[in-house]
């Protein structure tokens, strides 16, 4: 039943032509032997952020003339490990991935390492293995920055840091969401007059809606609200609208609203004057820089050099590639998008929405 001799390309193409399933797939996996194949292992397609990130990798890979394939593990760690194992048999030239679990991914990174296949990791760093380049975001620092931005606005409002803040924190199984919460918690601990309401929402829109609505009933004078991601925070917006609290910055009754991510929807709320700011990641840069580094160095058998990284294509412009526990790592510094810089064309949300036409479904 199992043919141990791979079909010749001619046989395969002949058979492939009559396979109706080929029509389903759009393309068969017939490919020129000299074409490099760089797959991407995604953690989810349920959030705009992850869709944008996959699109960034896809565009960067295809711009190099390489063959691209994406698999999605739907937040299931075991599925992701199985997909890596399966893809390995396809003889990839390199692999790029947003790991679901920083620690669990190490075992398959080592398997790729044993076959000398470069691994690029984005968004969620691995805790070990030999990764060619990691490009990610300091989630803890992002949480701190979001908290400080809220504190600044409370100081403006009351003259001193005080007030009531709701944090609609995400699922704690997610390392990114957990670190954002920890950064925020640690920051607010420094301000004893600020009452922090830490409420679990699992990062779900419907839960953010119900939690915010309930909190507004309990604390009608709520000063600020925060979500660790933009997409589900639409629930917060709905709750604010239901309670008559959806006011522009500077208007009486405005609830300070600061998130983390920097999606097009958040940029729109800022442009419209309702949202104070959002701490930005840069999934577009994650994908582009990772592919560039793999093309320039890893494919030529060289390590990615450590040191300053500068690129005027990105709003943050400067970062530094440092040695991490899994190899060279570029941690893109978090920055705050607000009314003063929201129209900068380099903001990732402006790139994906305006330049790439990646709309919300």
């Amino acid at each position, binding site marked *: *039943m*199992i*043919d*141990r001799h*791979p*079909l010749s390309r001619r046989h*395969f193409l002949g*058979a*492939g032509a009559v*396979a109706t*399933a*080929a029509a*389903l*797939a*759009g*393309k*068969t*996996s017939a490919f020129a032997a000299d074409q490099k194949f760089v797959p991407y292992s*995604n953690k989810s*397609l349920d959030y705009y952020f992850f869709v944008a990130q*996959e699109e960034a990798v896809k565009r960067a890979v295809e711009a190099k003339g390489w063959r691209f*394939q*994406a*698999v*999605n593990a*739907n937040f*299931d*760690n*075991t*599925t992701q*490990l*199985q*997909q890596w*194992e*399966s*893809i390995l*048999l*396809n*003889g990839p030239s390199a692999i790029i991935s947003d790991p679901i*679990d*920083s*620690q*669990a991914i*190490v*075992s398959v990174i080592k398997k790729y390492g044993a076959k000398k296949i470069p691994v690029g990791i984005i968004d969620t760093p691995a*805790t070990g293995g030999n990764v060619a380049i990691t490009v990610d975001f300091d989630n803890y620092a992002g949480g701190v920055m979001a908290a400080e931005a809220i504190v600044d606005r409370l100081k403006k409002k009351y003259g001193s840091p005080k007030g009531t803040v709701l944090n609609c924190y995400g699922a*704690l*199984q997610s*390392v990114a969401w*957990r670190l954002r919460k920890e950064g925020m918690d640690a920051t607010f601990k420094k301000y004893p007059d600020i009452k922090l309401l830490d409420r679990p929402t699992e990062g779900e829109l419907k839960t953010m809606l119900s939690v915010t609505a309930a909190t507004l009933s309990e604390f009608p004078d709520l000063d600020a609200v925060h979500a660790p991601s933009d997409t589900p925070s639409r629930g917060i917006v709905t709750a604010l609208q239901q309670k008559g609290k959806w006011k522009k910055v500077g208007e009486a009754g405005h609830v300070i609203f600061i998130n983390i991510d920097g999606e097009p929807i958040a940029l729109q709320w800022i442009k419209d004057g309702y949202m104070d700011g959002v701490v930005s990641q840069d999934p577009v840069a994650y994908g582009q820089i990772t592919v560039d580094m793999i093309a320039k160095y890893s494919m030529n058998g060289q390590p990615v050099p450590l040191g300053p990284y500068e690129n005027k294509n990105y709003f943050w412009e400067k970062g530094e590639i440092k040695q991490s526990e899994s190899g060279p790592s570029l941690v893109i510094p978090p920055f705050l998008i607000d009314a003063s810089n929201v129209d900068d064309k380099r903001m990732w949300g402006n790139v994906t929405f305006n330049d790439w036409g990646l709309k919300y479904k």
Partner: protein
Amino acid sequence: MTIQSDRFTAAPALPDKAVLSVPKRSLAYRVQGVLQHVVWIWLAGLIVIFGLLNPFFLSTPNLQNILVQATVLGLLGLAQSLVLLVGEIDLSIAAATGISSALGALAIQRLGLPVAFGVALGIGVATLIGFINGLCVTKLKMVSLIESLGMMITLQGGLLAITQGNTLTDLPDSYNWIGQATVGGWPVMPLVLLLGFLAMGFTLRRTILGRSLYATGGNAAAALVAGIRVQRIKIIAFTLSGFICGVAGYLLAAWQMAITSNQGDGFLLYAIAAPIIGGVSVFGGRGGTLGILGGVLLLTVIHVGLAIVYVPSFYVTMIGGVLIFIAVAVDALRVNVLGDG
């Protein structure tokens, strides 16, 4: 091979559901024989399709890959089958898989227990969970669907609480051995699956317990009249199911070399789907080991196949769903034609 070769019918309990008896060598008999193994025909069809789309799919390394990936799902499919056979369902099997392996691993890491003791402790915990499920369903007359849902949520929450959202890694090499070891290039882990299926096949076809399982699921009242201690059989089914979950949990941890705070969660629905696709009745009393294996391999082939053929990622989930849907449809066809529900 007779059409009854892999299936036991509790005839006394199910006089109205006996397989149609037709003369051998007639066309109808052959059609029945084909339908009996329809899951294998669909499996072969999928292997051909994926092989055409990507010749790598038909390589030996990929066969090994499929066998490794089928191991945990296969064991969980067996665990679920035991409970389905007695006419119940257990939604807590995947959660038991996760928490039992985490407790075993923590006993090794924090308490310094020898690896073998830690593994045994984990399997013991899962067995106990199965036993408790069995007690609740029989002695307390709880509805298994809801009882096991409550147990599932409790265990998932327990695992998150134990791990605090962290992933357990740095497990000893001897713990991970079974998930990583190869002999002559062939992985060792699938041997456990083979053993599991042989043991299950033997139990179902050659032991009093096996016949009692079928009888209990086929018609509990009739089984009771026939002198079978129905409650006890159900408790045994749940307990054995828990034991198998414990083994599956250990293998999953050893293969991943890690235990996440939601370990095992993704397996639940597939572990229910695999036996049903393979002909196990959700109403109890029917099913065979070979069918379960077919269902497990079918789902694994879909899983692996979709990972290595070029399908735009937005369509993969839908296509996978359609392939599973077809599998359920062909099994329903078999049931309708054979009157074999």
